[in-house]
Structures are given as C-alpha cells and as structure tokens.
C-alpha cells in the first residue's frame, strides 16, 4: 500500500527539466529528486500547489494510490 509519485511522467509531458521545475516551484533539486524517487514521507500543500501550477495538472495526475495486499499480511 503506497502512494506513487508520477512527477517524472508529467515533467516528460510538459518537457521540463528537473532543475528548471525545482527553480520554478522554489525547492532544491535534491528535494525534488527525493519527491520524484518516492522517498518523501509527506508533501506540503504549498509544494503540491506549485507543482500543479507549473505542470498545469491536477494533484491526481501527480499522485496515485497503489494497493498492495501482500504488504499488509
């Protein structure tokens, strides 16, 4: 059971580099990398809002819920 982060998919669709996106949304490239690699434990609404604004998408386009029944047992 986990949240999948699809930022790289949207970045590819909008043809935007990680460095440029990090600069536009005001976070460090290292933090964007943590977010992209699914290592983040939480995301602030302000960051999500900035991502949606810059990538012209909805939060649901960036985040997806994946149910993994085996993980729970």
């Amino acid at each position, binding site marked *: 059971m986990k949240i999948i982060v699809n930022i790289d998919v949207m970045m590819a669709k909008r043809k935007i580099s990680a460095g440029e996106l990090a600069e536009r949304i005001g976070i460090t490239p290292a*933090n964007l990398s*943590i977010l992209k690699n699914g*290592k983040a*434990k*939480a995301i*602030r609404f302000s960051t999500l809002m900035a991502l949606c604004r810059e990538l012209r998408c909805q939060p649901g386009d960036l985040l997806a819920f994946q149910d993994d029944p085996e993980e729970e047992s």
Partner: protein
Amino acid sequence: MIRMHVTKDMSIRLTLACVAVFAVFLLAADLFAFRWIGWYVAWRGMRPESVLKMTVTLYAASVFGWVCLWALWRLLKNIKAERVFDGENVRLLRAISWCCAFAALIFCVSGVYYPPFFFAGAAAAFMMLIVRVVKNVFQQAIEMKSELDLTI
C-alpha cells in the same frame, strides 16, 4: 543571537570541563582507593576482609564509571559539532543507562555486606531511569526529525 550562541557554546565547554573533572576524580579514586579503603575500614572498626570486598566493589563500579564518562564525552562532542539528533547519541545514552544499571546492581549486591552501598545503588538505578527517559525522548525526536526532513 551571537550572544546566545556564545552562551550555548560556553555551556557545552563547561559541561565538558565537568566531565574532565569527574575523570580526574575517578582516576584519583582508581589510584588511591585501595589505601583510602584501608584507612576507612580501620577508622570504622570494620572486619579486615571488608577491605578486599569494598575494593572489588569500587573497582568494578569504576569500570562502568569510565565507560559512562567516555560516552558523555562523545555525546558532548557530537552536540558541540551540532549532531544532536543522531543515532549515535541514542546508542551512547543507551550505553550510559546500561552502565548505571550495572553499577546499581554492583552496589545493591555489595549492600549485603555494607548497607550504605544500597543508597549508592538506588541513586545509580534512579540515574539509569532518567537517562533511559532522555534516550526515549531522543529516539522519538530523531524519528520526528527524519519525517520533517523528508517533508517536501
């Protein structure tokens, strides 16, 4: 702000100095305990075999005293280097609490032949309790910090 920083740094230095002073006391105790115990036993009119028992008790406890002082020194050095919420500090606090527990055990067992040692044992056990609570707080704080660090 600068004043606060200086004060904090000086406070750590003062604590390090206190640890060094305790190390000097412990070294003195290790070097002269045998003689002091001899005098004390003679002064109190205790049985001569008490000298050996008390010496064993104090030297056994002193081993844990050294480990405690070494762990405190490392802990303070880490704090001085601004590595406060670090896994190593939790390990050091755990080592200190175990040292207190072993010292408490030694003193409580020794209290059988010299009852005042029970007080030292109780003090060491209480110290163990305090250090364990601090260790638990540190552990929780590290978890919270890692969560905060990974909130983007």
